[in-house]
C-alpha cells in the first residue's frame, strides 16, 4: 500500500480537467504504455496569452492521475513564462508530497508541460544532442541531468525514483552514476535556480526541519522560524539555545552556513529581539 496524502487521493478519486481540448494551442504526449504511465496534456490560451484551459488524459497509477490533475489546476491562469517556472517539486508540493518512489509522476507532469509549451512555440520537441541512457524506459542523459540538478539527487535509486531510469534491467547504472558525479561536481552557484518567495520560504522551513533542528535538539536546544524578509531569515532560539552564551555562534556558523549551502548563498540569519 502506498502512503498517499489525502490531497493525492482526492485528486485521484475526483480528478479535475480530464479530457482533451479540441484545437488546442499547445499539446504534448509523454511516457508510453510500455513504461506504465503516459500523459497527454492540451491547453488553450486566452487573449492575454494566459492559459485559459488545460486538460489531461493519463494512463497510469493513482499518483500519475493525481499529478496530472494537480498540474492542470496549477497552470490555469498562468502566462507561459510563469508556467515554465513550475517545477516537478511544485507539483508534488501542491499535493502535499508524493512517496519517493512516485516522484517520477511529477517529473512526467513537468515534461508534458514543457513539451506542450514547446509545441505551442513551434520549437523542436527533443533536446538537441540528447542520448538515450536507459533503454528500458527510454530516458535520455539530458533528462537525468536535469532531474539530478533540480532535485539535488545523489544516488542511482533517487534517479530511478524521479525518472525511472535504471529501474529495468540495470545495465545503465554505471552511466547514471557518471551523470550524477558530473552534475554534482558542477559549481553550485551557477546551478542554483532562481527561487520564488514561496519556494524560498518552503526550502528554509524544510532545511531547518531536516538539517538543523535535529542537531540542535540533540543538545537540548531548538529554533523557530519567525519571518523571512528578502534574504534575511529571522529566527528565535528555544530551549538550551535561548540561554546559551554561544547561541550567536551557533546561528552564524551552523544555521546560516547550512541555509547558505542548501537554500541560497545570499541568506543571512538574525535572531528575533527577545
Amino acid at each position, binding site marked *: 500500500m502506498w502512503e498517499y496524502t489525502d490531497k493525492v487521493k482526492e485528486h485521484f478519486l475526483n480528478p479535475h480537467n480530464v479530457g482533451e481540448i479540441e484545437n488546442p494551442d499547445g499539446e504534448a504526449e509523454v511516457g*508510453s504504455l510500455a513504461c506504465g504511465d*503516459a500523459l497527454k496534456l492540451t491547453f488553450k490560451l486566452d487573449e492575454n496569452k494566459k492559459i485559459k484551459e488545460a486538460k489531461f488524459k493519463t494512463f497510469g497509477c493513482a499518483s500519475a492521475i493525481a499529478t496530472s490533475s494537480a498540474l492542470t489546476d496549477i497552470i490555469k491562469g498562468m502566462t507561459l513564462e510563469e508556467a515554465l517556472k513550475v517545477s516537478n517539486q511544485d507539483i508534488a508540493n501542491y499535493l502535499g508530497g508524493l512517496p519517493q518512489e512516485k516522484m517520477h509522476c511529477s517529473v512526467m507532469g513537468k515534461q508534458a508541460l514543457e513539451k506542450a509549451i514547446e509545441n505551442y512555440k513551434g520549437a523542436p520537441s527533443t533536446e538537441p544532442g540528447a542520448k538515450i541512457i536507459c533503454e528500458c524506459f527510454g530516458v535520455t542523459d539530458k533528462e537525468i541531468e536535469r532531474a539530478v540538478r533540480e532535485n539535488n539527487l545523489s544516488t542511482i535509486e533517487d534517479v530511478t525514483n524521479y525518472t525511472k531510469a535504471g529501474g529495468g534491467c540495470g545495465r545503465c547504472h554505471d552511466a547514471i552514476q557518471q551523470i550524477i558525479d558530473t552534475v554534482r561536481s558542477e559549481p553550485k552557484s551557477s546551478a542554483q535556480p532562481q527561487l520564488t518567495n514561496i519556494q524560498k520560504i518552503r526550502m528554509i522551513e524544510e532545511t531547518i526541519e531536516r538539517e538543523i533542528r535535529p542537531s540542535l535538539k540533540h543538545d537540548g536546544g531548538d529554533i523557530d522560524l519567525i519571518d523571512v524578509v528578502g534574504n534575511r531569515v529571522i529566527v528565535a532560539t528555544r530551549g538550551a539555545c535561548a540561554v546559551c552564551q554561544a547561541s550567536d555562534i551557533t546561528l552564524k556558523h551552523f544555521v546560516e552556513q547550512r541555509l547558505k549551502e542548501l537554500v541560497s548563498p545570499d541568506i543571512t540569519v538574525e535572531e528575533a529581539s527577545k
Partner: protein
Amino acid sequence: MKTVYLDNNATTQVAKEVLESMLPYFSEYYGNPSSMHTFGGQVAQKIRVAREQVAALIGASPDEIIFTSCGTESDNAAIRSALAIRPDKKHIITSRVEHPAIRALCAHLATQGYRITELPVDKNGLLDLENLDKSLTPDTAIVSLMWGNNETGVIFPVEEAAAMAHEKGVLFHTDAVQSTGKIPIYLKNNAIDMLSISGHKLHAPKGIGVLYIRKGTKFSPFLIGGHQERERRGGTENTPSIVGLGKACELAAKNMDKENKEVKRLCDKLERELLKRIPQSRVNGDTANRLPNTTNISFEFVEGEAILLLMNEHGICASSGSACTSGSLQPSHVLRAMGVPFTMAHGSIRFSLSIYNTEAEIDFVIEKMPPIIERLRSMSPYWNTSQQTCKSQ
C-alpha cells in the same frame, strides 16, 4: 463498508475452528513439548496429532513432516540442504515464474558460485518438460519447480518433472504453498523429495510452515539448535500454530470437494462475466491447468494500481501485477516470462477466492468492475486510439 476479500493467494482468514483449536495452547497448555513432565508432554501428544493431520492431507507419513516458520523458510531449507549434502554439485534448475522465496534465493546463490537455469514458460504460463530434460546435468544438485503459480494459478506437472529428475539421480523440490489444500496431493504416489507448505494460505495463521522430506532423503538442517523435529529443525515448537495448522489441514481435506466445485464455480463465473462485460480484457494463464480459486485478468489500457484503489473504494480486495504494485518499475516477472504484452500486463488484476466467498460477493464484484474500468479508460489517452509503443522500442 463490507470487505469483499478476493486476495486469498496473498493470505487467508484463519478459520474459526482453527482459532478455537489454538487458543488453549496459549494459555492452558503452555508447556514445552520437550519437557519430561506430563504438563509439557501432553502438548507433544497434540503436536503428534497435528503432524498426522498434515501428513494425511498430502498423502505422506507423519515422520516426513517438519514444522517450520513459513513457506520461505521451507524453500530455503530445501534448497540449501540439497546443496549441503552434495557440495560437489553447483547447478540448480528452477523456472522463470517462481515465487521470490525461490527466485531471490537462487539469484543470491548465483553470486556464490552456483549456476542457475531458469526454465521458460509459454504464453499460457505452461512448462515444456523437454526443456527440463535437456537442462539436467551430472552437476545438477536440485530441481525446484512450484506446483501452483501464485499469480496466475497455473499448475506445473511437478509429478512428471520429479520422475524426470529422479531418472537422472537429481533431487526434486516443489513449492506447494498455493496448491496445498486446493488440489489433491498424494506424495506416496510420486517421486517428489521435498515440498513446502505455508499455513496462512490455507486458513491457518501466519508464521507456520511445513517442509515435507521424503523418508530416506538426506537432509542437512537449516536451523541448527535443539533436538526438535528429530534434529532437522532446531527451535522450540510454535505449539499453538502447529495445532492450528493441523486443524486447518483437516478442514482443507474435508473442504477439497467444495474448493474444486463451489469455489471453482464462483471463480469461473467471475471470470466469465468480467470478460463478457468488459471489452478488451483477457485471462493470463492456462485455464485448464489452473488452481480452482485463481483468475488473473488483464484490462487493456488501464493501470493496475489505479484499478485496485478504485476497487478499494468498494471494499474489494485483490492484487495486481502492474509495475506500480510489483515494488519495481516493471510489471510482474511472471507475466513478463509469459510474454504478456505491456499493454495488458500493467492492467492485470489477480482475483483469488476461498471457501468463505459467497455468490452475493461475486455478483457485487461483477457489478462494480465494469464502471471502474470504464472510468479509468475514459481518462486514458490510449483508449479509443491506436496502440502506442514505448519510445525505446
